[in-house]
């Protein structure tokens, strides 16, 4: 519930700071509206955005943790059901992609589990709206295309998204892995505190370079033209096949929402 009333760590500050950088007067007005909106949502406990998203859940499950008393997946769905009902959140899930019947309670959650060392369970919740999910993309590049190919793909993804997915964006990029893992890396990148650099120097440098190029596109807040198109680029990378260079871009709108709890 709370995750839908409040912006992710670092996001509010990033939006506020960007007002100074914005040269377009309409852009500055829009950014100020976003600040006012998130403050209103927090004080009144209402969702920041009506698209309260799919409940994307990522569990880092310590290998020494033993889950007792029932099915963990069902427990998460029950939590989603209660949270979306009691929290006046919109129900945005259809049970079949072609038949398109609303499930009525925003279940199922979209759950991914990773086993990690330790005896803790870390639960990430990322309510993910449809608008910014729809403009996300994945490509299997040739290794010879290298870092230039990756840059082109990220830029062209944001370029195509234009103003459609509520900029300013946070851009999650996955590089490497398998076809499916790459997409997940891009999503996981959105769970980092906004603007926190990659611990790997070559990736941190690429993040900065991409951010500058994206902001040169001129899309601006809401796509009305301006300096601030993205607030941050986060890259996650993983080993991959000698013949592969997968790259995935998962965009988040300014309504980036993320909560993490450790138990």
């Amino acid at each position: 519930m709370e995750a839908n009333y409040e912006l992710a760590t670092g996001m509010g500050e990033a939006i506020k700071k960007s007002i100074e950088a914005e040269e377009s007067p309409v852009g500055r007005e829009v950014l100020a509206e976003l600040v006012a909106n998130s403050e209103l949502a927090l004080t009144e406990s209402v969702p920041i955005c009506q698209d309260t998203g799919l409940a994307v859940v990522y569990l880092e499950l310590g290998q020494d943790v033993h889950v007792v008393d029932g099915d963990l997946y069902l427990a998460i769905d029950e939590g989603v059901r209660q949270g979306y009902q009691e929290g006046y959140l919109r129900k945005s899930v259809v049970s079949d992609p072609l038949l398109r019947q609303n499930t009525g309670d925003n279940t199922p959650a979209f759950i991914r589990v990773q086993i990690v060392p330790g005896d803790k369970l870390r639960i990430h919740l990322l309510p993910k709206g449809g608008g910014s999910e729809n403009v996300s993309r994945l490509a299997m590049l040739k290794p010879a295309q290298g870092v230039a190919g990756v840059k082109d793909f990220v830029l062209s993804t944001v370029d195509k998204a234009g103003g459609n997915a509520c900029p300013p964006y946070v851009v999650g990029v996955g590089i490497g892995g398998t076809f499916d893992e790459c997409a997940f890396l891009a999503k996981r990148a959105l769970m980092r505190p906004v603007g926190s650099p990659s611990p790997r120097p070559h990736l941190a440098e690429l993040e900065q370079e991409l951010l500058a190029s994206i902001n040169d596109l001129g899309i601006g807040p809401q796509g009305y033209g301006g300096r601030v198109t993205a607030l941050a680029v986060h890259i996650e990378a993983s080993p991959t096949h000698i013949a592969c260079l997968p790259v995935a871009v998962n965009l988040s709108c300014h309504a980036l929402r993320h909560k993490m709890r450790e138990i």
Partner: protein
Amino acid sequence: MFEITTPFSDDLVELLRAGDRVVLSGVIYTARDAAHARMAEALRAGEELPFPLAGNVIYYVGPAPAKPGWAVGSAGPTTSGRMDSYTPELLRLGLKGMIGKGARSEEVKAALREYKAVYFAATGGAGALLAKRVVRARVIAYPDLGPEAVHEFVVDKLPLTVVNDMYGGDLYLDGRRRYARQR
């Protein structure tokens, strides 16, 4: 900043230019994907639409449920492009304005010119702020569609930006051109 009210006359539409910031008051109607599909079906079958199009404005929104004390839950715009295929016909029948977010097709822009109408963007994702401007809301058609049902909203000073005017102006293109930088 213009203050405008619904329904719209041609004279009013003629005044609006891409990039203008306006506040809108009066009655507007909500419809998104599923409601548009139903309205298209109704037109094909020769049935009446749930609300009169002439002079009116459609808001592309599927609001979140209302909390006690609020007329409506968070109510920001959805991406308008998904409604593009339905729009020219609605404009031909007298629809004067649409509120959404994101770019429209060439067909829609041409229809705005031909039938004198205007496309506004509301700040996408400012759902709480926009909901505060909705004074009254009620479902008037397709209640089975849940958030996608057609609502009648009475709004007071809803803040909007003109994106496409009836002269071919397009804020998404013009704005971007102004701020793009080549390296």
